[in-house]
């Protein structure tokens, strides 16, 4: 492992612990160009990450607030009124705000944290570093991508401050509820802001996605064929393709909805009598929106989970000191997932009155997607088999990811089967399923990524003890929160109810709801510990002293400890082999930059 001193000017472009503008180095960068309108992919990645963290805290806090209501429906919390004002008159969250919190929790976490925060961070950070490029294909568009994301965030945030409140009809935004201001207070100006915020988000996602795709396809260094790139890059490529193909469909669906709201069209509206009058709209189909929404919505869950899969695959190989098992199978299964992602959307719509034959096609395609998922799980297990595992915090989260992905993936087999979906649709079983498989497990992938690449981002380590506490509490907490929810689902307890006490079929879970809420609050508090660890370590963490602290093969560890804009001070290294030569020929690892030796064994 080499030392700092070997490299040209690692200290010249010191970035992060120095927050004063007087430290300019020789790039003539100002505070604005370096930290605000930066065109360096690494800085943009950090912007995405930190914005995502802010959103994650807000989104998590929302869930804490509505879990308080669910866990303690008969109690009042006067301090809630102190901090939330009219949102919680008398210490109880009002019904419209309960639904706003539920809706915004979903929107924020799905789009702004697990899409923007996850693939925004790691696509930006890892693609150029791992394929050997100095930056993205278009650093300028990349910068715009972040600022559109930021703009979208501001608009969504602003909707909390309008008189009628943010949108409150569920993150899936189904019309007519979302189309008619008379249907719900949140469907007034809040719904317009939601659409505008999402439109900006889509623009951001497209600018980013096109950039990621063109960078991966065109800017790989010499020797870096597609069969040699790390699985992270493959995962991020498929993610970007999914986003580019599906987000425009959401946008067009939302534009039609905007017309229905304000221009008197009837794309989604027909035969409606609301607030004492019949509406003029006729001939629209409310279900059409669901088709358009889920044509994005389903690929969206893979947009969330694929980057996590990529990060986990890479981290597993590095820390098991073994090649990832079945590289081509991993790529193939991600490809299969990406294709199938577009062919399964109507499994969200089995009980909308969908033609049963059409439903059956979607059952078949949906359960097919379990095959590539199973391949990936078996490959991860085999990667660990006979490895020599180092339990860095990143590796812990990678193991946790696999565990959660199995648990949540298997319940998908229940829900994808239309027969069972009739009973389980829109119950807590669904909540348990998707929170485990794409909520918590994607978070685990993200945590793994943050812990693993933090030294590359900031040239320092995060505190391990805090990381282990963070891991164990989160893993145990996640199971304690979501595992019992399957049972609530098996009692057909519906989602999105503010209070179950009036229902004789669903009021038997009072104690359980209290328990879940308590655990949720604890888990949330521990995430603050992670954030503290993150920000503290940026400034005060233990310094990284070796260029390749993990003994990893990939290119990001050939850059200086704190790479400047351009990543490599000299020539971009040439690549001679795939990214997974760990434990080969009795060597701990062989970097991708090392030419194939004369007597090297083949794999």
């Amino acid at each position, binding site marked *: 492992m080499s030392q700092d001193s070997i490299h040209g000017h690692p200290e010249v472009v010191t970035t992060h612990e120095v927050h004063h503008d007087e430290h300019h180095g020789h790039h003539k960068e100002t505070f604005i160009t370096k930290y605000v309108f930066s065109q360096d992919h690494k800085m943009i990645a950090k912007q995405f990450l930190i914005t995502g963290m802010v959103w994650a805290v807000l989104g998590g806090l929302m869930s804490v607030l509505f879990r308080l209501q669910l866990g303690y429906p008969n109690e009042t919390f*006067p*301090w809630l009124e102190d901090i939330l004002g009219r949102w919680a008159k008398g210490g109880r969250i009002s*019904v419209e705000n309960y639904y706003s919190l539920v809706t915004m929790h979903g929107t924020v976490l799905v789009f702004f944290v697990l899409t923007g925060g996850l693939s925004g961070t790691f696509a930006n950070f890892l693609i150029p570093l791992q394929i050997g490029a100095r930056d993205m294909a278009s650093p300028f568009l990349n910068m715009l991508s972040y600022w559109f994301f930021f703009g979208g965030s501001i608009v969504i945030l602003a909707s909390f401050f309008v008189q009628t409140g943010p949108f409150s009809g569920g993150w899936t935004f189904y019309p007519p*509820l979302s189309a*008619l201001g008379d*249907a719900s207070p949140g469907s007034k100006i809040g719904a317009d802001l939601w659409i505008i915020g999402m439109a900006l988000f889509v623009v951001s996602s497209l600018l980013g996605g096109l950039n990621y795709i063109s960078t991966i396809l065109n800017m790989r260094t010499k020797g870096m064929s597609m069969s040699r790139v790390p699985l992270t890059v493959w995962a991020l490529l498929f993610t970007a393709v999914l986003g580019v193909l599906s987000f425009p469909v959401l946008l067009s669906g939302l534009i039609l909805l905007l017309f229905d709201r304000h221009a008197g069209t009837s794309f989604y509206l*027909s035969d*409606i*009598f609301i607030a004492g009058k*019949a509406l*003029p709209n*006729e001939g629209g189909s*409310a279900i059409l929106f669901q088709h358009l929404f889920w044509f994005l919505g389903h690929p969206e869950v893979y947009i969330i989970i694929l980057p996590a899969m990529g990060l986990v695959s890479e981290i597993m190989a590095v820390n*098991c000191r*073994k090649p990832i*098992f079945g590289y*081509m199978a991993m790529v193939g299964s991600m490809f299969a997932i990406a294709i199938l992602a577009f062919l399964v959307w109507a499994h969200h719509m089995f*009980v*909308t*009155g969908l033609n*049963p034959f059409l439903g059956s096609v979607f*059952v*078949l395609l949906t*359960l097919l997607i*379990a*095959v590539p998922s199973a*391949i990936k*799980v078996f490959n991860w*297990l*085999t990667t*660990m*088999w006979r490895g*020599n*595992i*180092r*339990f860095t915090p990143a590796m*812990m989260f990678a*193991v946790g990811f*696999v*565990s959660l992905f*199995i*648990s949540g993936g*298997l319940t998908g087999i*229940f829900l994808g*089967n*239309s*027969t*069972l979906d009739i*009973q389980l649709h829109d119950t807590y079983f669904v909540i348990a399923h998707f929170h485990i498989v794409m909520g918590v497990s994607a978070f685990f992938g993200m945590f793994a990524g943050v812990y693993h690449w933090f030294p590359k981002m900031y040239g320092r380590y995060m505190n*391990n003890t805090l990381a*282990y506490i963070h891991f*164990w509490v989160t893993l145990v907490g996640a199971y304690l929160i979501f595992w019992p929810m399957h*049972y609530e689902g098996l009692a*057909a307890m*519906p989602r*999105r*109810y503010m209070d179950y006490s*009036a229902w*004789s079929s669903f009021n038997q879970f009072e104690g359980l709801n209290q328990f879940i809420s308590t655990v949720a609050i604890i888990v949330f508090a521990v995430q*603050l510990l992670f954030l503290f660890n993150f920000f503290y370590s940026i400034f005060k963490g233990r310094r990284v002293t070796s260029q390749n602290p993990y003994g990893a093969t990939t290119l990001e560890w050939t850059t200086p400890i704190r790479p400047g804009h351009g990543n490599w001070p000299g020539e971009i290294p040439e690549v001679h082999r795939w990214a997974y030569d760990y434990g080969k020929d009795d060597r701990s690892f062989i970097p991708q930059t090392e030419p194939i030796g004369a007597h090297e064994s083949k794999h």
Partner: protein
Amino acid sequence: MTTTGFFLLAILALGFLITFQIAKASEYVSILKGEKKAFEQNNRINAFLMVVFLVLGLIGVWWCNKLLYKKTLLPYPSASELGTNIDTMMWITLAITGAVFFATQILLFWFAYKYQHSDKRKAFYYPHNNKLEIIWTTIPAIALCVLVGFGLFYWFKITGEAPKDAMVVEVTGKQFQWIYRYPGKDNTFGKKYFRLISPGSNDLGMLWNDTVLVKETKGGGHGDHGHAPVDNKTVIKADPAGYDDIIQSSALYVVKGEPVKLVINAQDVIHDVGLPHFRLKMDAVPGTPTTLWFTPTYTTEEMKKITGNPNFEYEIACDQMCGNGHYTMRGVVKVVTRDEFILWRAQQKPAYAAYAEARGIAPANAAPADTTQATAASAAAPVKLANN
């Protein structure tokens, strides 16, 4: 903020501080001990915790099941014939996924423990094995085919056409209540039209009167002066079939052992007729009627005995987010015997009777007085009659 609040916050802050100090201290200790030694120690502890987590987790799974199983619908029989299929499917799926769950989780955490870092061992260079990969592609594929096969077999049974002799009941959802309509003695539903809805007196928009609809044409023809003036009045004839329809909101009465077909509508936003005990569910979509049929197998009274709950009621839960009152949108299904149903039905007055009475029309009068109701309709909207 209350003192308790401050107190809790203070405890939380203190907790953070202590955790942080311990974490800092352990970092210093690890530097003193030497990084390698600290790493090995951490590795051993965490590998051990992986197995502890596995064992405690498996116990937790068992315990959770013990506590919660009887609170679900699983221990009780389905209240509909088709629901029994769903229960069978549930058990098949549980068996297959359960086996995979335990096998993979045990392997995962066991491998994590067993293959923890050791200086004495080297990782085994094992990049791929085509045979293995083919095996674990085909086995899941076969298992899933089995699940798809069973699933679709039941799915087509459940979603198939209702038997010809099924009783038809119309269910209409609106924010936030359910309205049930039974055809009267003529066994035919009267026509209705959403523009004729008048809350309180004509909740479903029944065609009880001859009604003249006036279309509102936008003032000033834009360049179409050449055309003859359009007739902007449409007369909708009253539908006598609707005079004996029973419309009520108290409960959905169905007969044990006889198939019932629900025709489901919504007036404002999407709702969903969720029938937990019958294992069924169907959206109510404005503008697009949907259907659902089932055969109840236990009366409400019988279900009280089965569940051991003297207050048991079959509930209709709205299962699609429909606005702020979503969680209050509760309906009740009364499953009764044939005789009880006939008695109940005989007691019901046609909804038209009350309507006519309020307007001083003799209910027997087949051709009600001509009231003209001007309803605003957009110029473009063609007048459409809903049959059900």
